[in-house]
C-alpha cells in the first residue's frame, strides 16, 4: 500500500504505485489531466506526492520514449513555418514541465547524442539553465559563475531605451541613452526578447592597456572625441509634482504665483520662471532653488488663524522647487486631476548627462569600472590603420577575474565590425572562437587580435602589441552628478543643533565614534574639540544652584530662575547636545547640578 498525498494532504492509497504514477503521467500528456499537475513517487518513504499548487519552479523538457525524443524534425519545420506554437507542443505531449520533485523521478539527457532507453527526458537547450539577463552575456559559458552573476546584475542597471513613448510618460527618476545600438555580438535571447527594440548600450572600440595609471583599480579611460560624438550621452528625467489638496473646513491649496505677504515667501527671483497660472513654462533653464510650481497652502492650525486673524491671507508658501544640486531644462508640463478630482500638476525636468570622471560603465561580463580620465582624442593611442580606442580598459582586471568571455567578445566584435555582420555569441551555441580568428586573419588583421599601437602624445610605437577590439559597453545609472556632495557650513537640526544628515539635506559628513578614537589616540585633544564644535553653545550657569540661568540681553542682566538675581552667574561653553541632556534629566526629575571651576 502506497499513500498518496495531494498538495501535502493525505488523499488515499494505491496498491501499485509505479503503475499509478505512470498512468497519471500518460493522462497528463494526453491532456485529460491538467498539465500543471506533477507527480513524484518516493521509493524510500513509499509515498506519492501530487502537486498542483501555485509558486513551484518548473521547467520545460522534451519527453523521451524508448530512447528517442518525441520532438521530431516535422515539429521543428512546423514551428519554423509558424504553423504550431510552443503551447501546441505542450498540448501534444511533446514538451512537459517538471517541478523539482518530479525531476527526481526522471533521467534527463543533456544532448540528443547521449540518449539511452533509460532516459525519460531531453534538455531543450543548455541555455535554459540561465536566466534572462545571464543569457544575454555573450560567450557566457567561458566564464566563472560569479562573474556571470555580476554581469547580469550590471545589465539591469544599464541606461537604455526603456520605452518608445518616453516623451509623454511621467516616470520618476529615469534615464535615456542617446544613441543606443544593438550589440554586434549578441545571443539568441537578444532576438527572442526583441532586445534590438530597446537596446541598452553601444558598440565601442576597446583597448586593453594602461594609460599613465589613470585606469588603476578598475577605472577606465574614455576618449574625449568619442564623448563629443555622443558616446555614453544620456538624459536624466526627474518629475516634480504638486497637488491642490483639500483640507478640513473647505480650505484648499492654491497653485499660483504666491503673494508677497504669504508666510515663507522666497525671493521674487525664485519665482521668475512661473507663468500667470503659477506653473513653469517648457524649455525654461532652471537651477537649484528655482520654483517649478508655485503653491500656497492654508494655515496649518485653524485656531491660530482665529486668534490672530488680522488678515485672512496668512497662507503658507508650499511651492515645489528644484532640490539642492539639481539643474535642468523643463521638458514637459502636464495639468490634470487625480482620483479625488484635485488639480494635479506634473513637471518633467530633463538634464543632459555627458560622461564625466566618476561615471560608471561596464561591459556585459561583470567588468564594471568608473571613468578615471577623459583624454583628448589627439593624446589617445592609435593603430596603424588610424583606429583610436574609445575606451581603455586595464589589463589588471582580467587575470584574477578570469572573464574569458570579455576577451572573446573583443575578438568577435572586431570580426563582426570588420566583416559587417552580427555574431552569434549564445552561451553553449556560439560561433567558435577559432573560426572568428581565421576570419579576422582573412580580413587583414592579426588573428590574435593584437595590434601595434602608437603613443598619441609622442607618436612613438609602444613596445608591446596591444589587444584591441570592439565590444558592447553599457553606461550604468550611477552617475556622479547624482552623488557629488560637500559641505562647509549648512543647515542644522532643530532639536540637537547638529548638522543635518544626507546629501538631500546638504548634510555634514559624520566624524564617528571610531574616527574620534583616532584623534584621542594621537592625543590631539584640542583638534578633537574643534571637530565636535558644530553644536557648541555658551550658556549662563548659576553658581549657587548649578542650573542653567537666563540671560536677558534686552535688560542686559542675567538671573537664575531658581535663585533670582543676586547670585553669581558665569558663562560656560558646552555642546548643545549636553544642554539638551541636562534638560531631559530635569524633565525626568533628576537634578543635574553643574559645579563650576576655573579650568586654568
Amino acid at each position, binding site marked *: 500500500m502506497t499513500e498518496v498525498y495531494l498538495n501535502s494532504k493525505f488523499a488515499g492509497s494505491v496498491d501499485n504505485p509505479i503503475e499509478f504514477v505512470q498512468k497519471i503521467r500518460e493522462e497528463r500528456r494526453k491532456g485529460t489531466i491538467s498539465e500543471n499537475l506533477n507527480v513524484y513517487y518516493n521509493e524510500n518513504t513509499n509515498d506519492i506526492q501530487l502537486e498542483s499548487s501555485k509558486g513551484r519552479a518548473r521547467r520545460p523538457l522534451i519527453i523521451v520514449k524508448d530512447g528517442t525524443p518525441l520532438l521530431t524534425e516535422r515539429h521543428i519545420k512546423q514551428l519554423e513555418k509558424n504553423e504550431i506554437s510552443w503551447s501546441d507542443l505542450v498540448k501534444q505531449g511533446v514538451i512537459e514541465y517538471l517541478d523539482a520533485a518530479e525531476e527526481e523521478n526522471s533521467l534527463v539527457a543533456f544532448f540528443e547524442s547521449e540518449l539511452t532507453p533509460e532516459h525519460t527526458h531531453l534538455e531543450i537547450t543548455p541555455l535554459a539553465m540561465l536566466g534572462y539577463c545571464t543569457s544575454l552575456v555573450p560567450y557566457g559559458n567561458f566564464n566563472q559563475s560569479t562573474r556571470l552573476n555580476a554581469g547580469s546584475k550590471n545589465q539591469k542597471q544599464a541606461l537604455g531605451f526603456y520605452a518608445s513613448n518616453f516623451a509623454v510618460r511621467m516616470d520618476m527618476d529615469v534615464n535615456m541613452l542617446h544613441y543606443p545600438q544593438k550589440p554586434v555580438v549578441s545571443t539568441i535571447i537578444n532576438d527572442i526578447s526583441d532586445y534590438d527594440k530597446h537596446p541598452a548600450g553601444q558598440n565601442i572600440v576597446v583597448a586593453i592597456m594602461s594609460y599613465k595609471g589613470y585606469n588603476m583599480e578598475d577605472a577606465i579611460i574614455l576618449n574625449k572625441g568619442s564623448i563629443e560624438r555622443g558616446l555614453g550621452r544620456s538624459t536624466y528625467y526627474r518629475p516634480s509634482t504638486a497637488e491642490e489638496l483639500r483640507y478640513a473646513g473647505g480650505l484648499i491649496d492654491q497653485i499660483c504665483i504666491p503673494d508677497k505677504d504669504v508666510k515663507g515667501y522666497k525671493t521674487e527671483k525664485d519665482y521668475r520662471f512661473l507663468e500667470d497660472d503659477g506653473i513653469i513654462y517648457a524649455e525654461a533653464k532652471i537651477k537649484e532653488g528655482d520654483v517649478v510650481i508655485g503653491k500656497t497652502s492654508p494655515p496649518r492650525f485653524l485656531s491660530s488663524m482665529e486668534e490672530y486673524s488680522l488678515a485672512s491671507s496668512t497662507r503658507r508658501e508650499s511651492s515645489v522647487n528644484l532640490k539642492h544640486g539639481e539643474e535642468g531644462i523643463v521638458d514637459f508640463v502636464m495639468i490634470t486631476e487625480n482620483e479625488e478630482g484635485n488639480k494635479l500638476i506634473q513637471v518633467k525636468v530633463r538634464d543632459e548627462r555627458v560622461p564625466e570622471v566618476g561615471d560608471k560603465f561596464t561591459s556585459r561580463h561583470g567588468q564594471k569600472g568608473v571613468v578615471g580620465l577623459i583624454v583628448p582624442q589627439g593624446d589617445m593611442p592609435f593603430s596603424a590603420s588610424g583606429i583610436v580606442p574609445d575606451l581603455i580598459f586595464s589589463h589588471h582586471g582580467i587575470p584574477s577575474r578570469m572573464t574569458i568571455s570579455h576577451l572573446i567578445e573583443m575578438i568577435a566584435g572586431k570580426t563582426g565590425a570588420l566583416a559587417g555582420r552580427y555574431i552569434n555569441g549564445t552561451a553553449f551555441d556560439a560561433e567558435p572562437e577559432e573560426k572568428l580568428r581565421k576570419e579576422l586573419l582573412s580580413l587583414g588583421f592579426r588573428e590574435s587580435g593584437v595590434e601595434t599601437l602608437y603613443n598619441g602624445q609622442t607618436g612613438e610605437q609602444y613596445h608591446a602589441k596591444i589587444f584591441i577590439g570592439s565590444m558592447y559597453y553599457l553606461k550604468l545609472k550611477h552617475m556622479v552628478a547624482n552623488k557629488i556632495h560637500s559641505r562647509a557650513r549648512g543647515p542644522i537640526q532643530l532639536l540637537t543643533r547638529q548638522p543635518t544628515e544626507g546629501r538631500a539635506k546638504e548634510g555634514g559628513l559624520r566624524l564617528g565614534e571610531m574616527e574620534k578614537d583616532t584623534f584621542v589616540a594621537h*592625543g*590631539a585633544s584640542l583638534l578633537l574639540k574643534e571637530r565636535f564644535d558644530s553644536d557648541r553653545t555658551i550658556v549662563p550657569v548659576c553658581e549657587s544652584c548649578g542650573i542653567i540661568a537666563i540671560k536677558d540681553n534686552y535688560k542686559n542682566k542675567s538671573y537664575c530662575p531658581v535663585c533670582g538675581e543676586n547670585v553669581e552667574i558665569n558663562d560656560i561653553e558646552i555642546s548643545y547636545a549636553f544642554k539638551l541632556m541636562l534638560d531631559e534629566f530635569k524633565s525626568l526629575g533628576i537634578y543635574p547640578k553643574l559645579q563650576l571651576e576655573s579650568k586654568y
Partner: protein
Amino acid sequence: MADIISEYEDRLPIKILGEIKNNLPKGISDSKLKKIMEAVYDEYSNAKAHPGESVGLIAAESIGEPGTQMTLNTFHFAGVAEMNVTLGLPRIIEILDGRKELDNPMMEIYLKKPYASGKKVEELRHLALQIKETKLKDISTEFTINIADFTIEVSLDKDKMKEIELTNSKVMDAILKQLKGYNIKDNKDSLVLKARSKEDVFNDAYKTKEKIKGITVKGIKGISQVLPVKREDEFVIITAGSNLADVLQLEEVDAYRTTTNNIFEIEQVLGIEAARQSIINEIFKVIESQGLNVDVRHIMLVADTMCVSGTLKGITRYGVVSDKSSVLARASFETPIKHIINAALVGEVDNLDSVVENVMVNQPVPIGTGLPSLAVKAPQKAKEK
C-alpha cells in the same frame, strides 16, 4: 660597583637591574659601568609611554583592528578523541568577558620526570584513567527499580570495569561517599541499593536512580576526555574539561607547568598574578594562531586592567566598566538609564576626569595636548580685571 647600581634602584625596575648584574663582565671599571647604566636608563626612559599617551585606546585599536580579520570558527582536534577548541574571536570575547563557564574548557597536564618519558605505556594509561572522569552510568548496563522493596539494582558492565581497572568495592566506596542514607549490597554482577530509612517512597527511589547515574566512580570530576600527546620528548596529557585544584593534587603531575584555559579557575587556585599571566598567554595564543601580530604590551595592559582590583573582572558592564568613577562614562557604555537613575539616587558627582565625559560636554579631553594645565593659581586681582 654595587653602589653605582643601587643609585638607579628607584629609577629602573628591579628586573632590569638584576639582568645587568648578572651579565656584567668581571672586574668592570666604574666609569664603564656608569656609562652602561646611563645608556640603559636612556633606553628605558625612551621605551616608556609618554605622560598623556592614550595607552588604553591604542591597545583597544591594536587588538580590535586585527580582530576584524579573525575567523569565527572553532577548530577540531584530529585524532581518536573528538575535542573542540574555541579559537578566534569567540575565544577572545570569552577571555575578555571573564567568563566562569567556558565553551571548551581544556587542561594541559605536564608530568613529573619518570612519568613524562612515556617509556612505561601501562603507567601512562593508568594515569590517564585516573584523571578521566568515569560516571556510574558509564560502567553499568541497566538501572532497575524493584517496586516491591524499593531497591535500586545497578547492573555492572564487567568488561568495561576491567578495562578501566575498577573493582566492585571501589565503585561501592565511591557511591557511599557521594550518596548518603543508603546501604549497598554487592551481587558481583550488580549492586543493590537500599534506603536506610523506612519511609520508602517510589518517587524517592526514582530520583536516586537518576542521581546515581551521575556519580563519579573514578577520575577527576569535570574531565570528560583525556588525550596523551607527545610533545618534544615528553608526554603531556591534554584534557577536555578542567579541574585544576584536583589535578594538582595528583602525585605524578608537575604542578609547576600544568595549566588550564579556565582563567577563573587559575585565579581561584593560584591567585590573581597567575590569572593575569594566564590572560596574556591565552589571548596571545589566539592572536598567534590566527597569524596576526599584536604587541604583547597591549595585551598586558588589558590583563592588568582586568586584574588590578585583586579579583578577576571582565570587560563588561558588570566588571571593569562598573568600576569607572564617572557616571557619564558608565552611562555611555551600556544600560544608561540604570546608571543615571542610580547616580541620581545617591547624588553622584562626575568630575569630568576622563575622555568620554569631556567629549560629551565638548571640552578638551585630558589626553595628549589636553592634559597639561596651569599649576599656579592666578592672583585674585588679575582675575577681577
